[in-house]
């Protein structure tokens, strides 16, 4: 996992779009013995808890979680529309699409309960939940630009 340190005093800070300062800038010796310089940051976003922005080298990644309570066909339409909008706007802003990919999972919950040693009751949830998790990885945009794009087009399904 990427190590995240905040407010490293001797380094230059950058103000995140959320108003807090977060910066992680370090030199390190890689396992190969060569010296590598990495500059990677995790932006903490309080505006949308289901969107996390990270950077790596020249790329910016939005990790996104979406819960749908529509039927599967409708959820697919919404997901495709969201992905296309992120792609189109990335290019419109002069960025390069690296990879936008999502995995859509379907689940229907059941509750099991008992109040004595005999009977176990089962109740099925009245809806099927569809959960999409994925990433939009782009080059040539700032973290703020990508976050804005993803937040604006995020399907307001829940």
């Amino acid at each position, binding site marked *: *996992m990427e190590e995240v340190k905040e407010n490293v005093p001797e380094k230059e800070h950058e103000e995140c779009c959320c108003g807090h300062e977060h910066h992680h800038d370090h030199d390190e010796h*890689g*396992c190969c013995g060569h010296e590598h310089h990495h500059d990677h940051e995790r932006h903490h976003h309080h505006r949308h808890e289901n969107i996390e922005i990270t950077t790596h080298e020249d790329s910016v990644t939005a990790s996104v979680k979406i819960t749908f309570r529509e039927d599967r066909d409708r959820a697919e339409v919404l997901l495709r529309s969201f992905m296309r909008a992120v792609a189109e706007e990335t290019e419109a802003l002069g960025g390069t699409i690296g990879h936008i990919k999502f995995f859509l999972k379907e689940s229907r919950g059941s509750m099991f309960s008992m109040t004595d040693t005999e009977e176990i009751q089962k109740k099925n949830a009245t809806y099927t939940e569809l959960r999409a998790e994925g990433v939009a990885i782009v080059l040539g945009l700032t973290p703020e630009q990508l976050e804005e794009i993803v937040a604006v087009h995020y399907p307001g399904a829940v």
Partner: protein
Amino acid sequence: MKTIILGGFLGSGKTTVLLQLAKYITGKPDFPQVVILENEIGEVGVDNEILEGAALAVESVFSGCICCTGAVDLIDAVQTIESQYEPDWLIVEATGMAQPSSIQTNLKNILGLDSVILAIADASRWSKLMIASPVFVRNQLEGAGLVLLTKTDKTDADALAKAYEEVKQCSGGAQVYPVCALDPINEKIFEELMSKAE
């Protein structure tokens, strides 16, 4: 444990190739055990869902690139895989932003583990990516044992010929095979790759 590092740019078709490669290896007469080490750059996994759905043994490292910032995670994961599974084959799928040669160097220097790099280059986006990030894309082919030039079905003949020549120049003498990974990949290519990992 014979090791293959699968590298290539974002969206070039690494996972699609990996599914075929893993099934080819596990389908051999002696039923060798294959474990996949999956690395994803984001906070959530997508490729691991596809691979686990194909009944493959998968260990995942999220949220850090194992060629650089997540190098320690790479070493930890490989050691865990080796001790827990003792597999015949390990396939490391790098992120699309990784330099596979750095992973190879780390495995060799830290664990003394030899490996071969299978590099994937996307023919359909080759020209575009060579404008957007030429040094990075070129470096991803460094040290390749074999290169698959994918998405031939989405690339016109002239662009494919140009991409082939340029990829060949960047690949340090490795064989370059144009393929559409949605179709069955010629088994001789996998045999050639496996022989390089022996």
